[in-house]
């Protein structure tokens, strides 16, 4: 009797010893108990796929094609340039509403703030980590970014500039204009005059 019990305890100890407990960190891939159709030979994004020559499922669009719903028309709204030329548009070509501004603030906070900082002075968190060459959106000395046209800022977001990467793939044109609007608001926060504020609201400003 005692031996049966000992055998039982040993069995349990061996199983637990090999299998461990729920939630243990492990390098072994998840076990699929009934793997019937768990993994299908269909295309999954960003995965290996032998169908294509280079072995990846996510392909670049073939030359001369555009993705569905992508903005391809050569309008000021999509390129930041005056149609038919290379000159940048001076002013944001979409209606600037409070929704657009709110969207701009949100997108700026996600994509721009880590380097350019909450106030746009180029002293975001990355400046403490070794990133020294970040544009100051107020550019106290040269005023280059203050005097730049809206289209030029749009183009910088789209394609990057100097050491700054391109953000055109993560921000669609409407979002880029929203960010431009918010950048303008940040700049105005340092350049604005008391006269710019409606008379009724002036008292609320110290």
């Amino acid at each position, binding site marked *: *009797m005692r031996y*049966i*019990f000992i055998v*039982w305890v040993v*069995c*349990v100890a061996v*199983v637990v010893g090999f*299998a461990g*407990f*729920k*939630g*243990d*960190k*492990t*390098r*072994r*891939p*998840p*076990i*699929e*108990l009934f793997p019937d*159709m*768990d*993994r*299908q030979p*269909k295309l*999954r*994004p*960003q*995965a290996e796929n032998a169908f294509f020559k280079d072995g*990846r499922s996510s392909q670049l669009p073939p030359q001369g094609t555009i993705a569905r719903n992508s903005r391809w028309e050569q309008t000021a709204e999509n390129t930041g340039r005056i149609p038919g030329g290379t000159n940048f548009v001076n002013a944001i070509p979409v209606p600037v509403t409070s929704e657009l501004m709110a969207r701009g603030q*949100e997108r700026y*906070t*996600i*994509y721009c703030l*880590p*380097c350019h900082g909450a106030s746009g002075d180029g002293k975001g*968190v*990355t400046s403490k*980590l*070794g*990133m*020294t*060459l970040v544009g100051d959106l107020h550019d106290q000395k040269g005023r280059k970014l203050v005097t730049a046209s809206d289209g030029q800022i749009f183009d910088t977001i789209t394609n990057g500039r100097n*050491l*700054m*990467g*391109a953000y055109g*793939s*993560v921000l669609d044109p409407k979002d880029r204009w929203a960010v431009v609007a918010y950048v303008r608001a940040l700049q105005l926060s340092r350049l604005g005059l008391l006269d710019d504020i409606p008379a009724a609201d002036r008292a609320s400003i110290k």
Partner: protein
Amino acid sequence: MAVLVLLLFGGGAVGGIWYYFSPKYTRVGYSPIQPVPFPHSVHVDQVGLDCRYCHSQVEKSWYSNIPSATTCMNCHNQILKEDPRLQIIRDSAQDGRPVPWVQVHKVPDYVYFNHSVHVNRGVSCVHCHGEINKMDEVYHAKPLSMTFCLDCHRNPGPNLRPLDRITDLGWKGANPDVQKSQGEQFAHDWKVNASQNCSACHR
């Protein structure tokens, strides 16, 4: 005697199956070695990046993308630019060959999970991925079993939060009751249709 043996070993087998044949064991804790030791804890908790800085399509697509190496290079062209741990990233940004990241969270191929509908209706990343902002190495924190999905689909209210707090993984409502009533309000206002129909996820 025979009855006792049957009880002991039969019970042991049933208990073992009950304990081990569950996604809480088969999936949870999976933490593969990645080609680049990317710590979410440093990038999110210390540096303060938003999830969407890298996973930029999560609000628009069913699939939450792994960022391209150029995204890394936005900062790492200046920060740690000589670090050998980042060699694969630099090479990838240079020649366009993908970084062989190992996917951790992988539901079966017959499950059609859509990221965008969840994050645009108040379900935070943290519900399915755990506190990934605190992980040095990503591990599978939640079972992602069918029950796991259905628990929330049967009663989404307590798990919904304001849309501007989706990527704030540490966010907690004022207290559970407030969060519940707030979440139920969201479910009503946003017409959240947490379907329990088979075809919602299986097609």
